[in-house]
C-alpha cells in the first residue's frame, strides 16, 4: 500500500522537453510509472519518447485522463505552471525546481488549499511508492538499490536523507510504503503534517519516519497533530541541525529554511515537543532497525541485501 501515488497513477509531465525531464521520465517509466503525456508551451504536436506533447494542460486533459502532474518548469515559471494545473483540475502536483521565490510559494500553497489539491515541493527530488510508481529523480535510474517495498512511510525535508533513511531501513530488513521528499524550502506548498495524516490513514503503513530540520513550524505542527489524533501508529523522528543552537538566532547556514527564527524552531525544542507527545526520537540512523523490531513492524520477507 502507499499514499498519493501507486501503479494506477496517470501522470502528465509539464516541461517534458527539457534535459532533466527527459532523463527522469525515462527512469520513471522504466520503474513502471504510467506517464501518459507532456506539456511544453510552444512544443505542442511534438513527441518525446512516443509521448504526445501539448501546449497547455487544458489541451492535454482534452485527450487524456490525468491524476498527477510532474512539473519541470524553471524556478520563475513554476508558479504559473502550478496555477495552470490547478485551474485544469489536477489535484496532485510534484514540483522539483529549487530556488523558487518564497512569494511564489505562498501563492501556490494558498491556491492549492483553495482547490483541495496537494503540491509536493517545491525543491523536492520527488515521491516514490516502491515497486509501483516514482515521480521525479528520487531513486535515480535504479530505485531498487535504495527503496524496498514495506510498511514504513517516510516524509523528509531533505531529498538526500529520504534515500539515506530508506537505505538504512533496507539494510535492517525493512521496506517503505511511500517515500515523500516534501522539499526543503521555508514555505513548502504542503506542510509535513498533511503527509503524516495520510500515512496514519494508510492501511499499508505501520510506522511513519520523519526527517526534520531547524526552522519552519513543520515539526511543531506535527507534534500538535500527534497530540490530537485518534491513532497509535508509531511515528519516528530523526532531526538534524542541533549545531545551529551554538550560533545566534537568525544565523543563516545557507539552507534558508533551516534557520532558527524562534526558540521553538530549534532541533532541541522540536525533539522535546515530539517526544512529549509520544514520537520515538532517534539520534543515530543505526538505532532505526532495532527500534522498528521493538515496535513489531513487519520485516520484508525478501533477503535484505
Amino acid at each position, binding site marked *: 500500500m502507499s499514499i498519493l501515488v501507486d501503479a494506477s497513477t496517470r501522470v502528465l509531465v509539464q516541461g517534458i522537453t527539457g534535459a532533466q525531464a527527459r532523463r527522469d521520465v525515462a527512469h520513471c517509466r522504466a520503474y513502471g510509472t504510467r506517464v501518459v503525456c507532456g506539456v511544453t508551451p510552444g512544443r505542442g504536436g511534438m513527441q518525446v519518447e512516443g509521448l504526445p506533447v501539448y501546449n497547455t494542460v487544458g489541451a492535454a486533459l482534452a485527450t487524456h485522463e490525468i491524476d498527477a502532474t510532474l512539473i519541470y518548469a524553471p*524556478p*520563475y515559471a513554476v508558479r504559473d505552471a502550478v496555477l495552470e494545473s490547478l485551474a485544469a483540475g489536477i489535484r496532485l502536483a510534484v514540483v522539483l525546481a529549487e*530556488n523558487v*521565490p*518564497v*512569494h511564489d*510559494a*505562498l*501563492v501556490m*500553497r*494558498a*491556491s492549492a488549499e*483553495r482547490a483541495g489539491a496537494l503540491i509536493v515541493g517545491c525543491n523536492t*527530488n520527488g515521491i516514490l511508492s516502491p515497486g509501483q510508481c516514482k515521480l521525479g*529523480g*528520487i*531513486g*535515480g*535510474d*535504479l530505485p531498487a*538499490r*535504495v527503496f524496498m517495498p514495506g510498511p514504513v512511510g517516510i516524509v*523528509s*525535508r*531533505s*531529498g*538526500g*536523507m529520504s*534515500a*539515506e533513511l530508506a*537505505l*538504512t531501513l533496507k*539494510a535492517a530488513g525493512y521496506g517503505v510504503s511511500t517515500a515523500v521528499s516534501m522539499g*526543503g524550502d*521555508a*514555505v513548502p506548498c504542503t506542510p509535513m503534517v498533511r503527509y503524516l495524516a495520510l500515512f496514519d490513514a494508510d492501511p499499508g503503513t505501520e510506522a511513519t519516519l520523519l526527517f526534520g*530540520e*531547524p526552522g519552519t*513550524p513543520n515539526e511543531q505542527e506535527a507534534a500538535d497533530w500527534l497530540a490530537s489524533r485518534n491513532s497509535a501508529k508509531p511515528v519516528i523522528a*530523526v532531526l*538534524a*541541525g*542541533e*549545531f*545551529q543552537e*551554538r*550560533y*545566534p538566532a*537568525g*544565523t*543563516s*547556514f*545557507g*539552507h*534558508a529554511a*533551516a*534557520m532558527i*527564527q524562534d526558540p521553538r524552531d530549534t532541533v532541541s525544542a522540536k525533539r522535546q515537543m515530539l517526544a512529549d507527545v509520544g514520537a520515538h526520537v532517534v539520534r543515530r*540512523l*543505526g538505532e532505526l532497525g532495532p527500534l522498528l523490531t521493538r515496535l513489531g513492524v513487519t520485516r520484508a520477507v525478501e533477503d535484505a541485501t
Partner: protein
Amino acid sequence: MIALTEDLAKAYLQSRGLPVPAGSAAATADEAARRAEALGGCAVIKALVPAGRRGLAGAVRKVGSPTEAREAGAALLGSDVGGHSVEQVYVEALEPIVAELYLSFVLDRYPAQVIASVHGGVDIEQIHRDHPDRIHRLNVDPVGGLRPWEAMRLWERCGIESARLPSLAALTVGLWQAFVAADALMLEINPVAVCADGRLSVVGAMLGVDDAALARQPQWQAMAATLASRGGRRANARERSVLEINARVPGAVFRYTELDGDIGFFVGGGGASLFQHDLMLALGARPANHLDATPGAGWKEKMAAVVDAILARPGVRGLLISYNFLQLVNVDERMRLIVDHLKLRGVDPTRFPVVVRLFGPGEDRAREIARELPGLVYMPPMTPIEAAVARIVELTGGPRGTAG
C-alpha cells in the same frame, strides 16, 4: 536573505511613490557636511550598515548644522556598528515628528504577516517582551493581498484614532505592495513618523530580499555578493569567491559559511550536512565551515571553488567529503574532479587527511580513481554516514572530548 542598506531600501520605496524623507549617502565627513547643508543644516546622520538597533548603538545622530554633521560623520565613519565597519553614513532630512509607529512585514513562514504597534521608534523586541498586547499581527492572504479595510482594522486594534486611519491604511497597503514587488522577506518601518503637519513619513526602513528572487530584481542583482551576509556578518574574501561563482554560473548552488573549527566540511545536500555537522560536534570536533550544496549546472567549477576556499583557510587540518547515497549523479565523475583538483593543489592525503564517503552509480570506477591519490580514505561500500564523520575526526587528532 540579502539585507539592503538603508539608502537602497529608501531609494526603492521612493521609486514606488512612498513618502521617504530626502536623504543620501556620504563616504567622508566633508561630504556629510555638504549634504546636511543642502538639507538646510538640520539633519540626521546614520551609520549605513545593515544592522538593527542603530539608535541604541549611538549610530543615529541628530545635528543642527553642517559643522555638527561633519563631526558626527567623522565619529561614525570607520567605527564598528553591530559587527559592521561603517564605510558610509546616510544624511537625511530631520522630520518634525510628533508620534512614532511601528510597522513591519515578515515572510519567514506561511503566510506572510503584518506587525503593527503604536510604540514605534524604540526596540520592538523590548516592547514584545514587556507588553506583548501592544503588538498586533495580521496574516495576509497570499492571493488577495492586503486590503485597505484589513489594514484599517489592524491599526484600529492598535488604538489609532479614526481620522488618521485612512491615510495610515493607504500607506500600509502601499508598503505591502512594495514588499511583494521586491520579493522581500522582511520590511521593517521603524518608525513610521507622524509629522507636525499631519504627513506620514517612512523614517526608518530595513529591507531584506529573497536570494532566490534576485535574478528578477535587477536593481540589486549586481551587489548580491557584496551584500550577502554569512553568519550575521559580511562574507569574507573566500566566501565571496564562492558567492561570485554561484552568481556567474546559474545552476548548482554552493553555500559556504566559515566557522571556527579545523575540519574542512564538504558535505552535499542540506539535510546530510546538518546531520553530519551534529555528528562531528557530538564527537567533540568542529567543522571549519558549513556547506549547503545543491546539484545543477556548473557543479564542477563550483565544487573546485569550495575546495580551494577550504584549502586556503589557515589552520584547517583535514577534509571530509561526504554525500548521501547519490541517486542521479555518477560517483566516478565526482571522484575524478576531487582527485584531479587535490592533485592540482598539491594536497598529500598522507599528511592532510581526506576522507570520502561517496556511494552510488559508477562507484567501482570511482574506487579505481581514488587509488591515484595515496592516503585518501575512501569509506568501504555502504558504510553508515556516522562512520565517515568518526574517521575524519580520528585522523585529525581524535575526539576532542565533549563539545564546548
